[in-house]
């Protein structure tokens, strides 16, 4: 798996499943938090867990929230588990 591909797949998954325009989803943009334009919440994180599981068969249940910070950190987590 190529990291850029993973980033792009996660971006598309988030865009489709959470109804966020792709142009907001820079790889390093903060996904969570009030200051973020995207401002995801706990229900959204469940959808990300389901999406990552569906895409890569990797279970992120209970994984620390630092890995959910951005598309970059999600991709890093996926890459580390896939290796």
């Amino acid at each position, binding site marked *: 798996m190529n990291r850029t591909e993973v980033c792009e797949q996660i971006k598309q998954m988030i865009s489709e499943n959470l109804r966020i325009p792709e142009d907001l989803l820079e790889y390093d943009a903060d996904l969570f938090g009030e200051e973020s334009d995207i401002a995801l919440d706990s229900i959204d994180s469940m959808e990300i867990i*389901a999406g990552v599981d569906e895409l890569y068969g990797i279970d992120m249940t209970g994984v620390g929230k630092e890995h959910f910070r951005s598309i970059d950190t999600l991709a890093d987590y996926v890459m580390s588990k896939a290796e």
Partner: protein
Amino acid sequence: MAKRCVITGIGMVCALGNDVSQCWNNLVNGVSGIKDVKSVDTEGCYSHLGGEVDCYNLPAPQYDRSVRLCIKAADEAINDSKLSEEDLKKAGLMIGSCVGGAASIDKFYTGVLNGNEDNNDVFKMSASSIANNVACHFGMQGVTSNIVNACAAGTMTISHACNLIKENSADIFLAGGTDSFSSLAFAGFHALHALAEDSCSPFNHSNGITLGEGSAIVVVEEYEHAVKRGAKIYCEVIGSGVSSDAYHITAPHPQGEGQMSALSRAIKSAGIKNEEVEYINAHGTGTAKNDAAEFLSLHTLFDCGKPMVSSTKSMTGHCLGAAGAIEAAITIKALVENTAPPTIGYSDEDKEALKEKAGDIEFIANESVKKEMTTVMSNSFAFGGTNASIIFTKDGKEKNADTQEKKFCITGIGSLTSEANGEKSLYCDLAPEVFSSRGVKLGFYRKLDRFSQLEVLSGVDALKDADIAITAENASSIASLTGTCDGPMTEITSFQQVVCEKGSTAGSAFSFPNTVYNAAGGYLSIFTGIKGYCATAANGTQAGIQALCHACTELSAGTETACVVTGTDENSENITDIYSRMNLQTDYPLGEGSVSVVCETVESANSRGAKKYAEILGRASGHIAQDYKDSSVKEELLAVTIDKVLNNAGISANDIDLVYTTYKEKDLLSKKFENVTDVCQNTGDCRAASALMCVKMACESFSEGKGNVALCISAGNGGACSAVILKRSE
């Protein structure tokens, strides 16, 4: 004197048994109905438990399971109340539901996957069909409504029935709720990780809910009527309260603010003190968030009186739209049997822990308690932030009526509809600018399904047009009411398609909250801050006008001064597919939209110097039972409804100079009236939005100096019809 409402019959079916006595025996003995789920495939799920009804001979197999469960419970209630055929024919019917025809939706889309779908199922999908079909089964010709505020629905129907009786709409209502077990709810709560792995453990381990199914119906009757016919009177309904959290679509307000508002409203309307409540059937779902907020609410309001409290969901499972009705029936039984049923599932250790948490409240663990009781309460809280509470007593007293009859007017209008242009199906423009121009941010509206987006946009416009800003001071004085034919059917069917294809583990946590019919009303309340009465009613294409009638009834009974009334229906590929399978005769392509009006007391509008589009002279709903599949409009139905609304307005047909309706009624109405306008011609058939469009267009005519008295009337599938008469405001 104010009219009094009493309970004269009860019927119930749930996991605990197929009638009231079976259920009650199990309840007082602390027997659980929760077992391994049979009707939904739970493969791969972390939970496999549910409370399913075990009844091999449910009546009326042509209907959805929710309707069949409801007929079963209604039949028992009718017999228990010894209603004559004549009384039953006149009786109204108020049914609460959360998932509506979810079992039929599952069956249909499973059929699509296997290439053997049954188009008869598409008529059973919407919750709109439930009350009509139950009424049709019993030949009932009174007013019907489906109140669809998720898990609070079954409480709200009893409350609304009482308020309708108090304003002379009928002497008798069958009221309650029904929901079948469904893969929709199971997969949804599974996705939210809200299911308990073992049986739910409310006010104890609080690690999730266990779903149930069932129905309960009570006969609500005007006191004098019950006395005159020698009916057995169980108790009196002396108070009820409904509120909106305006906080979050699934989570309750953590400090229980909205819950306490509903409970306090009920206590105030009952004219009692908090300490007079002796038993409380709590909502008690068993989720950490619910139980924490409810503990706090109960302690804050009731530590003074030391009431007994239990959650019978530990035995019935959470029956969603039926829960409030089942628990109201249980609460009534508790009162008349002087026995409080327990919350089960406590170990000795748990009991010790409970003592510390319980404080002055007597949480009943494992074993029922016999105690003389006079006044009891049942509470229900729902997704969308709806809270409802109802109070029953053995010791009802006559109360003086609020002598001043309230008058209502229209002070604001907002609308968003598709435009007819000859295409097969029509859509509204929901581009980002449509939201940003109204100050609705992406972070908020991206969460909303199409149905909710339409509703929020028109609701916000109507409030702005009425020049009402929601503040901390007026939030509880403003109500909201949504009328819809099909509710969020796009979100429901899309969710269901995935579950049918990929199994119960594939539900979307993101979309599930939007599958409840009152999510749209909930989002409107969250966005604007409205905290008063709220209801969503699924009543076919005429639901927009019936919602306005419903709003007037509740504004008359309650303390709110204004209500945002909305008629909303959406369009999508799935909905166009469903309608094409219905093969209806329509003059226009299917459209979508949302029309909102602000209905305000004349007193409030005058006091703030608001502009008034029109005064509401009269309002009425009529009903002539026919199967929900039958969308034909009968001349007799229009005649009955017009008679009722003219009578309510105190005018004659000759006084009407404008008529607004849809293409379905236009020809019949043109025989009797001049100036009949079909409101669908420019928008397509927007169903509930078209119904309320009648009111909007009448108001606009007045503004243009045209006409003085307008009749707005719409009939829907299944023989329901509602009308209002508007008068130009001086």
